[in-house]
């Protein structure tokens, strides 16, 4: 077998050899007050994982997108530097007789995530498993959702966790992927009909009823999540993914319009009926009404953005990341505010630019795909990462009400990291298939 070197990927991974250790050293110098490198084990471990991923992709003759892995590795590198900088007792595991701090646990999950990504990227040579069993996947997603309804554990006012003895996981992260697979399969199968004939009521064309029903079913599911799980962020994410995919598949604005009307009506009703929704919106409108209570996180996140200024307070010198436990969810929901304080507007924009690059590459993969299912899948998966980043960043900056979703590859959390890497694995496998077909004389 002839090995094709993934030169672009390697070239863009190399600068990380400097970036990640530099972040670790900077943090240590700021904390210790003297010039010494400090422990670099985690940084080296991270680099080893990414180098391993590159090696496996090269040796398996993978022809997928070469910028995906470096972009993810850069975002994850900045994230790991930030998590290493936070107080290590915020989270962690004591598995296999080892006591692991927060950054070490995250590194462990990076390892698991990368292995899963490689398994999907290299193993999924055929999309039949996803495409032909879409109802099976939908049933799996529904079962996961139901399990969350029944067994879910409430943390910070949202029921997102399932406790499985030694491990806890957030099913929402995986339901997201299953939902995208199902919608992609459904839309690819019915695309011609969806774009075709429709009834008209006055100036608005109404899509045929059989194709409106799944749309309504997903809307009902999302509203149930808001009411029962109190998980506003994931609900918003799911609905956004669905509308985006529907628009991309049909190119019809009427679907989006109907969806948005449903969204506005649903939000209004939810605001009127449910206390937890109203509380979120009220904090968003005026966090300073109760700065030490309900508005505490939002107010201090805003101060953190302000203190950060243009170039930041410096890694290891910010206030918000230092207080640790007394600022809830700084390692998950508010990691962006913490990053913005220490790296400033410049660093925060850098992180956002990387997220944008990820979205750009994902959409490019969708455009180059050779069949509708792969294209729709790539669009949905890309939207899921991009929209999730948008929701949490805008929530941190008080542009929209704060809802607890994770910043992909940056926030602390195993489920989120594993799910995000699965998404990258799927994108890699889609682009690999497109590249194989494009090559003349391929088997």
């Amino acid at each position, binding site marked *: 077998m002839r090995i094709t070197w993934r030169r672009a990927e390697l070239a863009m991974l190399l600068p990380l050899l400097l970036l990640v250790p530099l972040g670790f050293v*900077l943090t240590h110098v700021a904390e210790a007050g003297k010039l010494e490198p400090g422990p670099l084990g985690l940084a080296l471990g991270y680099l080893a994982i990414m180098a391993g991923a590159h090696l496996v992709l090269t040796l398996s003759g993978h022809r997928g997108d070469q*910028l995906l892995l470096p972009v993810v590795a850069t975002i994850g590198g900045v994230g790991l530097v930030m998590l290493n900088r936070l107080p290590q007792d915020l989270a962690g595991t004591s598995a296999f007789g080892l006591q692991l701090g927060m950054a070490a646990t995250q590194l462990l999950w990076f390892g698991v995530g990368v292995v899963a990504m490689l398994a999907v990227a290299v193993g999924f040579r055929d999309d039949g498993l996803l495409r032909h069993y879409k109802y099976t996947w939908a049933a799996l997603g529904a079962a996961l959702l139901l399990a969350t309804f029944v067994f879910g554990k409430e943390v910070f006012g949202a029921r997102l966790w399932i406790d499985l003895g030694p491990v806890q996981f957030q099913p929402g992260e995986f339901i997201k992927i299953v939902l995208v697979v199902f919608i992609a399969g459904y839309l690819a199968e019915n695309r011609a*009909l969806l774009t075709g004939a429709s009834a008209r009521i006055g100036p608005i064309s109404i899509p045929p009823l059989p194709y409106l029903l799944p749309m309504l079913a997903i809307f009902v599911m999302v509203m149930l999540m808001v009411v029962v799980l109190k998980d506003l962020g994931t609900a918003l994410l799911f609905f956004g993914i669905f509308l985006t995919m529907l628009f991309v598949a049909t190119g019809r604005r009427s679907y989006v319009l109907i969806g948005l009307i449903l969204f506005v009506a649903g939000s209004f009703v939810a605001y009127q009926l449910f206390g937890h929704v109203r509380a979120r919106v009220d904090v968003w409108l005026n966090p300073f009404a109760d700065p030490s209570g309900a508005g505490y996180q939002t107010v201090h996140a805003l101060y953190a953005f302000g203190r950060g200024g243009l170039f930041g307070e410096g890694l290891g010198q910010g206030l918000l990341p230092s207080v640790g436990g007394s600022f809830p969810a700084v390692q998950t929901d508010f990691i962006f505010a913490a990053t913005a304080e220490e790296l400033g507007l410049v660093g925060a924009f850098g992180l956002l630019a990387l997220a944008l690059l990820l979205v750009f590459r994902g959409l490019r993969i969708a455009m180059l795909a050779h069949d509708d299912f792969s294209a729709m899948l790539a669009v949905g998966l890309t939207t899921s990462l991009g929209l999730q980043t948008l929701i949490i960043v805008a929530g941190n900056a008080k542009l929209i009400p704060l809802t607890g979703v994770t910043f992909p590859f940056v926030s602390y959390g195993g489920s989120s990291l594993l799910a995000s890497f699965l998404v990258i694995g799927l994108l890699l496998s889609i682009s690999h298939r497109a590249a194989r077909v494009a090559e003349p004389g391929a088997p």
Partner: protein
Amino acid sequence: MLRILLLVLQLAFLGLLYLILFGFARSLLRDLRGAERMERASRTGIGRLAVIESPDGEPPVGRDIALGAINSIGRNVNNTIYVEDDFVSANHAMLTFRGRSWFIEDQGSTNGTYVNGHRVERPVALSYGDELTIGRVRMRLER
């Protein structure tokens, strides 16, 4: 002294982050130019049929058939897509591109035309990725 050192290190970190971003931007630019060239070279058609299974070897498995707007499929050599298979009728099916999508219509063949395993009774709109079965020959519509 330490403050200056920290400031220098901080700026180095941010500078490196932006160098990486610059590298990505350059790769993207190169890639866009390449894609433009590729587009001109290969993407002239509206679709292709990839042959997945063909027991008698005509068309051979693995061939990509470039499609025009109107394609007739059958065992008669005058068809645009000539299929050598005992289970294929002389004039078997028509594959046409109308408006924004592909349609397949059976031409009264003996053994029928199948899309994703379902027999076609009237003209049916196709999506990219759909599988056509004509006789024992399986082909996939691709972009």
